[in-house]
């Protein structure tokens, strides 16, 4: 019963994180929201495993935690270097500012 209530609370928190991912406004807000969403997914998998009496779900939770971290770092790297790829004129601006 309490496990069910905790699962419901976690699902509400996940909906809030998805709302932030929907609202943005920057891409970093969306990455942050997805990172939080992934952490809460790990918790939901663990709690649901205990709720249904199958704690073997924790293997899936471990896997999801690993994938969540790697996915966050990969998305950040993509957006950081995507910005740098666009930003050759940024470097020129900086050089002008330095000169």
């Amino acid at each position, binding site marked *: 019963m309490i496990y069910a209530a905790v699962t419901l609370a976690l699902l509400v928190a996940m909906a809030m994180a998805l709302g932030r991912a929907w609202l943005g406004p*920057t891409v970093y807000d969306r990455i942050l929201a997805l990172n939080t969403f992934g952490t809460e997914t790990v918790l939901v998998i663990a709690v649901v495993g205990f709720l249904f009496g199958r704690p073997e779900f924790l293997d899936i939770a471990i896997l999801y935690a690993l994938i969540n971290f790697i996915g966050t770092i990969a998305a950040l790297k993509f957006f950081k270097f995507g910005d740098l790829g666009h930003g050759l004129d940024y470097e020129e601006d900086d050089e002008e500012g330095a000169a």
Partner: protein
Amino acid sequence: MDALAEGSIAATIATAAEVLGWICVIAGAFFCLVGGIGLLRMPDMFTRMHAAGVTDTMGAGLILAGLALHEGFTLITVKLGFILLFIVFSSPTATHALSQAALAGGLTPWRKGEPRDSEVYSTGPGPSKEEKATAREEASSKG
């Protein structure tokens, strides 16, 4: 008599662990909700990272600790410990990389009295080039 007393002590410890586990799990769910509300209501990306940190530390930590208290000393508890250890290491790393990428991408932290970022720009990877140019002029005029 002694065996009976030992049995009742063990039962008391088991009950205490169960109650403590319920308290931890419920408190963890509460902190997850607090983090979700903060994620929606904080004014900009850097303050929202603070709210996300509540979910990553108190929420995940308390829920996993509560589940471990319910399970006792088994392989399940070891797996819960692995998840907790990994979250404890990965969450600050992701937060650091995120804030560094956001600063490199041109976001500036929100100050008290400024409008919420949703009122400054609506979409895209950070402020526009004109906004950055005006901010740079303001900074150079100040300096």
